[in-house]
């Protein structure tokens, strides 16, 4: 070996210093960039059965087998300068949503378990949650019967329902409000893809952005009552109205009820 000549102490220290400094610079730069790359942009959706993002970035070996296995060419491996971690698979619902095929081809051959190979039912996947993000432009919210997101939903009438509300503008019509139920929504993105607006009013977001969380100590009275099969407290004594004879009073309904005249009219 030619470089086996003895180093003096000064040279040894300078060389080691350079090495350590260079490596620290490299490591620092990469780990800083890594933090940034670990934050998935909200528009990017992982394939079904993906581990939580933090684990996914450690498990995914960036081989692209899922991309090749998808029969609909939906998945894409992140390239240089894209916002998603380099080489990891994702799709953008507005460009092309997940077809939710029953065989779930993309997870079958994942070598590392970054995608759950044992996943049986695509309806159990949680790629994200659809949210009606813009209630000002949604056609149904304006009183029209667009209903497209409701119709295209693969978990029909479960993940999205049309809830009826009074239309306060016309005063005589109904609003059919597209309402997402996160316990059934897979995050496939069909609704976002199909929304006819130039920019979708309904979008699939990561669960962390889409969902709130109720306080752990919250109890919903009506649910507790259902669970127990009856009121949890002593029922109130029915109010006694002081009314002329034969009259009744219905607080939540008809109001004052006159006594029925005997014998028809």
């Amino acid at each position: 070996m030619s470089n086996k000549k003895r180093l003096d102490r000064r040279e040894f220290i300078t060389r080691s210093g350079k090495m350590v400094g260079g490596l620290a610079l490299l490591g620092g730069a990469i780990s800083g960039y890594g933090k940034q790359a670990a934050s998935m942009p909200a528009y990017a959706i992982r394939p079904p059965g993906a581990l939580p993002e933090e684990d996914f970035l450690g498990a995914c070996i960036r081989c692209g087998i899922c991309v090749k296995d998808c029969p609909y060419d939906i998945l894409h491996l992140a390239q240089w300068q894209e916002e998603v971690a380099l080489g990891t698979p994702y799709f953008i619902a507005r460009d092309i949503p997940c077809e939710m095929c029953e065989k779930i081809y993309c997870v079958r051959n994942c070598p590392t378990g970054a995608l759950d190979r044992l996943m049986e039912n695509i309806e159990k996947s949680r790629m994200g949650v659809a949210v009606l993000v813009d209630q000002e432009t949604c056609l149904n919210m304006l009183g029209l019967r667009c209903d497209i997101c409701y119709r295209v939903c693969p978990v029909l009438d479960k993940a999205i329902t049309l809830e009826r509300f009074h239309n306060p503008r016309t005063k005589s019509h109904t609003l059919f409000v597209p309402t997402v139920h996160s316990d059934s929504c897979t995050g496939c993105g069909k609704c976002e893809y199909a929304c006819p607006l130039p920019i979708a009013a309904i979008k699939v977001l990561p669960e962390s952005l889409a969902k709130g969380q109720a306080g752990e100590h919250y109890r919903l009275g009506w649910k507790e009552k259902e669970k127990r099969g009856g009121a949890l407290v002593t029922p109130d004594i029915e109010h006694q109205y002081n009314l002329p004879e034969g009259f009744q009073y219905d607080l939540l309904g008809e109001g004052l009820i006159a006594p029925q005249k005997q014998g028809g009219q």
Partner: protein
Amino acid sequence: MPRVPIGRAAVEKKGWFRANRWLLLRRTSQLLIIALFLIGPLAFVEWSDDAEEKIWLIKGSLASNVVLDTVPLSDPFIYLQTLLSGQAFEQTVLIGALIVTLFYLLVGGRVYCSWVCPMNIVTDSAGWLRRKLGLKKKCELSPNLRFWVLGLVMVMALVAGNLLWELVNPVTLLQRGLLYGMGAGWMVVAALFLYDLLWSRNGWCGHLCPMGAFYSLLGRLSLVRVRAVDREACNDCMDCFVVCPEPQVIRPALKGEDGVSPLIDESLCTNCGRCIDICGPEVFRFGGRFNK
């Protein structure tokens, strides 16, 4: 500067083809591997009207793939990082990594660099152009720096719980890019080319790349090695030192005193066989570790 252009002696003695035989074989191997991945599905099997299953000769990329939908092959360098990042053992990738590891233990770890990795074509081209333009080396990093980078890569995976190196690894970027689309990745490859051309001879593959470092560790005891069988015939033309991607590995075997084995027993040797090609007096030959 050598008095005779590099390789002239070999071409005159052996003819152009034999003076480039191993190089041609290597390029064929590198391109063929990429081509095999690109050959689409071989057959479609209808499962249902939902979709059909595609049978592939080899599916995935060099990071991990599956041959004929049965045999998994995985890159042990990346797999080790996934383990360090705290992922549970997974049978498929474990088997795949073991098969690949076994292969390189036998044939020499850095066979990956010279016979498989497409980045080698890029850096070899830079090296070739560098010689043609007569560029002198300016910055010389230590060839051992890559082992420190390798250590850094593993520590980063361990500490961050995330394959940090894969966010910037230009080698897998190129391999993946050729199969799935490069996008802006060409800029990284071009930057490496320019670095090798203008800054440091074999700067990437010979000094920095932690994958090369990893595979060289795998190849410490490989059975296939280059031997300077006929070292008495050496006429000191220095052509082999000029073309060798790891010139420091040649000297002990070639210039060894009597009794020192003519085996190039350095794990950094990539078994590329360029020294065999370029040598007029035919000093070198591929051989087994235990050959006489």
